[in-house]
């Protein structure tokens, strides 16, 4: 697998905001890869390189080139792009 050919969710185990995004992805039947990071923000440089921020969830969608942070933004994006009225 190359790094950027699949939708990727940067997530933290047991993080409710991440689970919200997971439910939405599953609801739309979207394939994605989960990359789990550590609870400590200082250990999350991989997320910062991708999104500019160390927060999770962060979501990368190669289909549109979108990189998003914050679950509300991600959910809004998924609704808009993959929900009713989307493509």
């Amino acid at each position, binding site marked *: *697998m190359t790094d950027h050919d699949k939708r990727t969710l*940067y997530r933290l185990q047991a993080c409710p905001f991440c689970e919200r995004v997971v439910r939405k992805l599953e609801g739309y039947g979207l394939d994605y*890869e*989960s*990359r*789990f*990071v*550590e609870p400590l923000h200082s*250990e*999350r*440089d*991989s997320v910062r390189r991708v999104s500019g921020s160390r927060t999770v969830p962060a979501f990368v969608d190669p289909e549109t080139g979108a990189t998003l942070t914050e679950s509300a933004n991600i959910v809004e994006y998924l609704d808009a792009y993959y929900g009713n009225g989307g493509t």
Partner: protein
Amino acid sequence: MELGFDVVELPPHDAPSEGDEAPDFVRPLVNDEYWEDTALSEVAPALLVFYPMNGSFPATYIWQEVRDRGWTDETDVVGVTISTPYSHKRFLDEYGVDARLFADPSNDVAREYGVEHDLDGMEGVEEPRPAVFAVDDDMTVEYAWVAEEHPEFPPYDEVVGAVDGL
């Protein structure tokens, strides 16, 4: 000098040998930044190293040796043991090892490879015995070594030849 200690002989194993197909598996694969479910076949060609759990001295010895010999410069080196992804991440960081480690708390991968080791005195805990497989890009085992005693360490000089062949 007579040293009064016993090296434990391990029972026979049925690990794949040279020319066999390496069993594929999916487990969380941990690097220095995150972990992600990954199949061995996505990683191959690679050197697959089964080892006792993080924190045991064989784990430390084996990975310091891998690091110091620069194997990770030559090829992809992936480890497998029963430790969690969190433990793997700290282990890589603590010893400065540029490899990736599969987390297999159930020890099912070791069992699939026939290299499990049921630990005496740790009820309910099983781990891999040390074993090294060089797996080429079509998942053929090009080299195999499995520990027959506890503890026993990989024949590092011999493995280098397998690394060159990948």
